[in-house]
């Protein structure tokens, strides 16, 4: 592929990625938001995180299939409980990695 065409591809990808990131910040951040919108947006982080995590843990990709008991979902339970108990981000990452490494080795 020519350099020009590649550059054009990457630039157009960059543009369509940047706009959804930029639009709400640029237009919402500097005005008073209605109370209902603030309350609704308050629930968005927990919803997005759960959506990303559940799909990652409980399905396999290509082919997309339900798989409730794979190593990453089994390790998720003790990792989740550790996070709940300690509320430590760094600690949870270390514990999760170690458990996954062990489980991958021995299971």
């Amino acid at each position, binding site marked *: 592929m020519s350099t020009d065409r590649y550059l054009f591809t990457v630039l*157009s990808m960059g543009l369509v990625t940047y706009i959804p990131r930029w639009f709400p910040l640029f237009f919402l951040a500097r005005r008073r938001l209605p109370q209902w919108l603030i309350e609704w*947006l308050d629930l*968005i982080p927990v919803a997005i995180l759960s*959506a990303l995590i559940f799909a990652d843990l409980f399905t396999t990709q290509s082919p*997309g299939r339900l798989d409730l008991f794979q190593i990453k979902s089994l390790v998720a339970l003790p990792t989740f409980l550790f996070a709940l108990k300690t509320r430590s981000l760094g600690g949870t990452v270390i514990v999760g990695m170690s458990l996954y490494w062990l489980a991958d080795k021995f299971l």
Partner: protein
Amino acid sequence: MLKLRSEIGFDCEMKFTTTLIEGFKAAWPICMGYFPIGLAFGVLAQKAGLRPIEIALMSVFVFAGSAQFIAVSMLSSGAAVMAIAMTTFIVNLRHFLMSSSLAVYLQRADRKFLSLFAYGVTDESFAVNMAKFREREWDKGRALVVNHVANAAWVISTVAGGYGGEFIPAGSFGIDYALSAMFLALLVFQLRGRIYYITGILAGALAVVLSLLIPGNSYVVLASVLAATAGFCLRRHVQRKKGIHVN
């Protein structure tokens, strides 16, 4: 006067250093998680015929993991530019929701800052910054440092992969689990009451079902919007039942 000015300068410098350090501290789990994914991306891109400079260009201009993986496989199968751009747009539309949530905490930022900040909004920086903003120990400077440290880690690891990252064995020390573990902890930080648990479980269940039903990853946006709306209605319903007036 001179002394005063130098003291103020020193003070600013201290503040700047603290901002950098705090930002770095918050960003390290992201970097840890990006490293194996970035390497894997670089290796894949190199196999698809991209040079390290081309990999760097994509990581700098796009800065979005899954979209870049998809783009590389589309490039090697000879897809049209338009098709790649459309797919990228749909894959990354979820950032629209994240930026909307972040906007609540960036009310006093000017538009130049917001335009720069928007560049670094990813699943990971969003989750870390939201948790920090919630604890009220965060400001826009630190949040921006998180965005850019994560960006640097992404660019460096993808380019490293392009130079032949195969020499690092896959799955060393469970590093493939770093991002999953980080997301689990960040999810815990968001669970601040019953309504958050309900919304989370609903979003998760919807995401699993929808991801199996519809191709691509638009299930993230769909599941999140549906679950947040249901959670919102439920909360309003309970408030009304208890006779709490809400505007």
